[in-house]
């Protein structure tokens, strides 16, 4: 019976162009729509699988404004059974603030899953800071996680090959996309998700905030692409280039 807490973040869907808010402090989602980070979709799936395999529970948590309920409902629709919403303006919370707020909830759970890094801030550190807050071991950047007999087995790709970690519960694990296929919500799943009460909380402390000065857009790269040709006729020019760059294996 493993009690899993999975942490997600509402982020702007940046599949198209990135637009910044006027004050340069955030990404403007008014025209783009919102989603949960891709790694976290996989973390949610793993949480649901672990809960099912151990007869346990999967609780989803987010820190965000009122609209972030949409992402909590999305996680409930695919199998999480409870939800905690720390209501706050995520933009004013830095990684250590978020870790502290998750820690305030995580004490009751055996395993905390998070995304390795959020699609917007790309901070790479909330899970690790959380582990230090809780005094628990943390495994980072894995794509498969299972639990048996109080031991978490986590696996993923390392620089030298496929790596396996085994850590005792309670533990913290950050997840990368690739090991599981997130499931689509069913209509009954969606209906059920609407009825789950959401445990709303206030932050436990004033945020120190991120160390952000401002966001900017990268300078537009002037297109100075050199077209080597069209279709198969371009092959000699391509091979000339490969030779010139010295990249042809012998």
């Amino acid at each position, binding site marked *: 019976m493993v009690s899993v807490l999975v942490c997600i973040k509402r982020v702007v869907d*940046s*599949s198209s*162009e*990135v637009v910044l808010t006027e004050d340069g402090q955030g990404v403007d989602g008014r025209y783009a729509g919102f989603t949960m980070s*891709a790694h976290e979709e996989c973390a949610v799936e793993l949480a649901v699988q672990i809960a099912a395999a151990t007869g346990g529970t999967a609780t989803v948590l987010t820190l965000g404004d009122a609209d972030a309920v949409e992402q909590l409902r999305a996680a409930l629709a695919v199998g999480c059974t409870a939800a905690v919403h720390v209501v706050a303006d995520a933009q004013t919370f830095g*990684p250590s603030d978020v870790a502290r707020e998750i820690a305030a909830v995580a004490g009751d759970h055996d395993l905390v899953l998070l995304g390795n*890094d959020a*699609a*917007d*801030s*790309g*901070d*790479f*550190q909330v899970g*690790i*800071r959380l*582990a*230090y807050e809780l*005094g628990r*071991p*943390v495994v*980072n950047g894995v794509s498969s996680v299972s639990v048996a007999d109080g031991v978490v087995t986590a696996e993923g790709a*390392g*620089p*030298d*090959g*496929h*790596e*396996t*970690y085994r850590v005792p519960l309670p533990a913290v694990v950050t997840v*990368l996309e*690739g090991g599981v296929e997130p499931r689509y919500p069913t209509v009954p799943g969606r209906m059920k998700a609407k009825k789950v009460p959401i445990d709303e909380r206030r932050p436990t402390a004033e945020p120190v905030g*991120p*160390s*952000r*000065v*401002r*966001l*900017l*857009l*990268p300078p537009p*790269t002037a297109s100075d*692409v*050199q*077209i*080597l*040709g*069209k*279709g*198969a006729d*371009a*092959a000699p*020019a*391509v*091979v000339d280039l*490969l030779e010139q*760059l010295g*990249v*042809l*294996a012998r």
Partner: protein
Amino acid sequence: MIVVLVETTPTGEAVEVSQEAITFARSLAAEGGGVPVDAVVVGEPSPDLAATLAAYGVRTVHALSGDAYASYAGAAWAAGLKGVRGSSVVVMAAGTPRGNEVMAHVAAREGVAMAANVLSFSGLSPFVVTRQVVGGGALEEMRLGDRPAVFTVAGHAVEAAPADAPGAAEVVVHTPEIAAADLVARVVSSEEPEPDLSGTLKSARVVVGAGRGAGSSEGFADLLELTELVGGSLGVSRVVTSLGWRPHHEQVGQTGSRISPDLYIPCGISGAIQHWAGCSSAKAILAINTDPDAPMVTKATYAVIGDLHEVVPAINAEIRRRRTA
């Protein structure tokens, strides 16, 4: 002092992005009045590695040694770094998965901020860095006022360059006592990946990319042949892995690998920002696409407009022809 965590290949050489991180550290040191740059490596360095690091201007190579370092544990690496960093003002690494992980441990232990994937710095007081966020779709200026300032350097943010006046780096071996708690989360087994052309994706000099334009899982034969002919690795877009045409470990992008080859050859890839996040550090890009207006084409260094199923076999044939000529 500035301390740079240097990652090594299985054969014990410094990975290129670590050489870039040292180069970045040197420019930071120069701006700060010439503070020394020290390197930290895990395992005892070969004379070759020490010589390379010296050539990059490293003053002292601190080697973390002992049983605690027999297999990877992020917390143990951070604990070792803490032991050797003394009063250094900056602790940094390359923005690899390990680099980001270990620096996050360092920052959490020290109770300081951390900036991931830094591209440049602007001014030392206050110390402000610019880093990639939103998968490279935006930049963030971030103040790193704490001591030590902890950050990682994005791939190809700078070009690796040896120092003008290198000295001889002294090697100091440390065998720190590591707390048991810092060894709980360690790698218990590590296997070579299945032999495949993507095994060296992150360090390949040439990467052949394939996207939806490949058409099907059967559509990769010519692309794999090109990969072999250029002695490179295959990298794919998320569409390709989602459709199950190729395994996820070949995915390049925000949620896949970040690559920094000398040449990237994306074939039938549109160049969505999440894919661009993984390949923007390539030194040159040769796009092959039917659409002259695809973002990948307009952002590329070179392009061929056409159907990859015609262009790639013609390139392969031309390479083979020249070899036998």
